């Protein structure tokens, strides 16, 4: 499972949960290494130092993790429903989340990940939250996890308020993810387990 938080129009939140294997190629050693890692997730392994920009086959910059597909799906879905996005202000996170539009996009094998994946998304105002799930992952659990993560992001980063400084606090998202989605692992957490992890996350945020 990979998680992306992004603004829908143009900019993308620096991906807080880097793919293992993206930087896996040690310097000076061409591509032969790590067949396992590379073939499964390393389709967009970054180029060598000083190399040219990514080739045409790579997704457009800032559109890692099927971000482009999700953005398109979200805006089309919003257009089809004909409902304007609910305007919520800080403090109304629960309402914003309840009204959030959501869906799932199939990302075909090779575009951009080597295997077929499902991208679950939630659109809250102009923010997009995405979880990319492997074929074997439990999408019902993933949906709950995505909602939970989104609520925490909205609340702890005050994302419903104005301002761009959220980009300068991505470490909080990292810390949140490392607890609720440790090493990209979806967890079956009942409310007591979740409470315990959230307490730890809150302790980090309070620091």
């Amino acid at each position, binding site marked *: 499972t990979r998680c992306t938080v992004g603004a829908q129009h143009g*900019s993308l939140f620096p991906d807080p949960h880097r793919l293992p294997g*993206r*930087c896996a190629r*040690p310097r000076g050693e061409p591509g032969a290494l790590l067949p396992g890692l590379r073939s499964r997730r390393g389709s967009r392994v970054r180029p060598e130092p000083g190399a040219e920009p990514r080739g045409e086959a790579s997704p457009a910059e800032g559109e890692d993790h099927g971000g482009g597909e999700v953005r398109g799906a979200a805006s089309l*879905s919003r257009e089809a429903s004909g409902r304007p996005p609910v305007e919520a202000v800080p403090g109304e996170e629960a309402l914003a989340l309840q009204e959030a539009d959501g869906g*799932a996009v199939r990302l075909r094998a090779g575009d951009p990940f080597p295997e077929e994946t499902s991208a679950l998304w939630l659109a809250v105002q102009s923010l997009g939250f995405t979880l990319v799930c*492997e074929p074997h992952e439990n999408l019902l659990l993933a949906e709950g996890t995505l909602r939970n993560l989104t609520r925490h992001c909205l609340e702890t980063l005050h994302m419903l308020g104005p301002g761009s400084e959220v980009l*300068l606090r991505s470490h909080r998202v990292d810390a949140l993810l490392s607890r609720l989605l440790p*090493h990209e692992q979806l967890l079956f957490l009942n409310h007591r387990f979740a409470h315990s992890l959230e307490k730890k996350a809150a302790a980090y945020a309070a620091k």
Partner: protein
Amino acid sequence: MYSHGSESLINQAREIQEPELQRFHSRLVKLLQGKELGHEAVDSLQRLHIILSATKYTRTLPPELQGSLQSLLASPAEQFQVLSSAVLRETLPLSGQEGNYTQENFIQLNNHAAALVLSQAGSRADLSSLCAQLLRSLESRQSDGPAASLTHTLPILNTVLTHSPDCLTEDHVTLMSKKLVDWLRYASITQGGGAPSGGFFTGTRSRQPVPIAELDGTVSGDFFTVLCVGQSFTEDQWMNVYSFSMLRHWLITYRSVSNGNTTADTANRLQLSLSLSLSHSFSNDDRSEVDGSVVSMVSATSSSSRLLPPKERLREKAFQYCQRLIEQSDRKAHKKTDTDLQKACLVEAVCILDSVCGEDAALVFRAFPCIKALFGRLSSDLSFARVLLPIAQFYLNHGEMAAVDCESVWNLVFGRFPAELFDHQFLAHEFLRFIRLNLESLQLRVPQYSRSFPNLLKFLAWNSPAVVDDFVDLLPSLVTAGTAVELLHTLLDLPCLSATLVLQVRSTCLPISEPGGRGLLSLDAFRSQSFRGLFLFLLRGEAGSGDTIDRLSTLHEMLTETADWPRVVQCAQTVPVLLHIFFNTVIAIADQKLLAHLVQVMLERSSLLLNIPKYNKEIHRVFSRHLLLLCKLHPSLVVDQSHELLEFAGATANVYSKEEIYTHVVWVLGEYLSGSCDSRCSVMLITSCFETLEAVLFEITSSAPPPGADCPVPRVVTSLMSALAKLASRSHDLIPRVSLFLSKLRTVTRGGPVAWCSDEEDLVAIVTRGEELWSLLKAPGVAQSVLTPPQPVTTPQWHGDTNVAMPLQLRALTNLTHSQ
């Protein structure tokens, strides 16, 4: 507002110049050397992270900075661990530093540093040794040390498993299987540390252990699962959660590992067995089960399974765990999040049961009673639809073997799901994926499948952009000789279905008295008894009740106002794509009779479509293309359908409203209405076709277009002329009539502009074409050879056989026309 600010920040990060970046780096190095790292350091690191992640180039950091970031990984403040890990993951490791942590100290790393090491592991050997370390840590540590370090072990292992499953050896797998059994089945059943103490004088010894509880608050009577709650949890209870979270993936993966991992390099195996042999002997009888502090509480049932080899034993325990989860999910949870978790657990449990039954057929008979009962419990409640899908998968995979009747499952899944849950995005995604992945076996075992397309297409009609990709893959499987015609009609009316679904949702949401419910003619029509049948046909769940309906134009009229609804427009945009797929598939399976029927449908439906801007044009384009392909493949279709084709080509109105398809119809008539294509093609037929086309050509070139219509497209005029010339070349009596027409055309156009062609260049082109044909027809023998299609060649040998080569014919033609 939000995105604007973020965008400018990212742009700034991208446009930062090298000298400025250098200064920033050196400032940061100084900053990090200070004793107290404060807000400024956090802010700078965060900015560095943006700079690195916003660019498409790989940035390298100065070694000094890289070094201080590396040491920051071990900072006591987690904030700095997170930041340095995030920054370093954006860069390449310094040469010579990779693998720094892979030797002995990996397990002592904090979580964030471990993530970095994992992301920069250089080779499979590195990963293998990381795995070995992790497993050793699981083995050696039972209760001492901080809990946090152990809990992340399983997620890390699972990550490695995802990327590179083959770096686990058979021994790893055995060990992990044993550990998973311990955590899953034998976690403590009393609550962790938070139990209330008796008071100031009572020591720890007198603390009463508090049993864990079920989600409904009752005391738990069986082993611990993720659906058990307490005030706080012990370490092995946490491990239970982590184990179950990765169990399914483990079960799927280790199957492939054990099958294909004979190639694991011997060095690894050697290293591993050395490291493990200290604590373990890998005999098949399971003695390790209760070593250390893991307390086996409920082991009454496990005495027999204890004799099983580790993998089989894990399978057995996973089976029991899942059965318990299914029981527990029946309890009424106090919290909504727990109710959701129960559903997710049901999905997981059924999937795991499916997986273990796939490996061990004997389990199928044990599992089915439980699955059946679950289906019985949930099938009436569609809020459990997403749980019912894995159950359907189970029935599909094992129903035949257990000789279980699956009828009710398929009726539910292919009947009620699409009909009632078409607007459920997540279900649509999972359902269509289910079909895609099981296509072959569905076609084989579920007779309802291919008849259910009117129902399945509701997902597409409701949310076209999200699911069109699935239907691109699925549509071919829905095309059968028996349903092709109905499917074609259904696809063409997909925008109507889309509109109808919107109306259905609106009419249930808005009572008639509501102001929002009034004022829509289509909604009134939807509610009206007299049109009920039309809408019910669109909303039908199964194919077979007729290809289409008589009053289609009435329906289209009623839905006129829906043509600009976004959902309908989006749906209409997907239809051409699907039609292409439909025709490409049908051409392979259909016989001549069916193809003839399809040609009829195309001609008929070209004027019977919901009037959405551009939609008709697009559909005409698809029809034209496939009419051409069909006729090319089966030229005798043209003779078969000559009546319908001539009727279409003889209607002058079609020239103006359907020029695309009209042109193609005229072309196939001219091209394939020939004795050489079909012996049934008589002179009479050729003559009647000639006369029909001649009349139309005469009509459109002798008068102005009807009011409101544009001038006929030059292509229509030239293709009519060509078709006439072709027909005449096959029946020489007709040649004088064409020649007369063409010479008249030249005379008329010399007299100045004409009413039927406003563009002078177009007119010149038309006249030139006429003159060419006229000259050609002066030598009837040549005309026939040039204007008659060559016999289809089954084994072309153009390279060797110069006599039949087209260039030769063309050269002859050129000589003839140029000698004029």
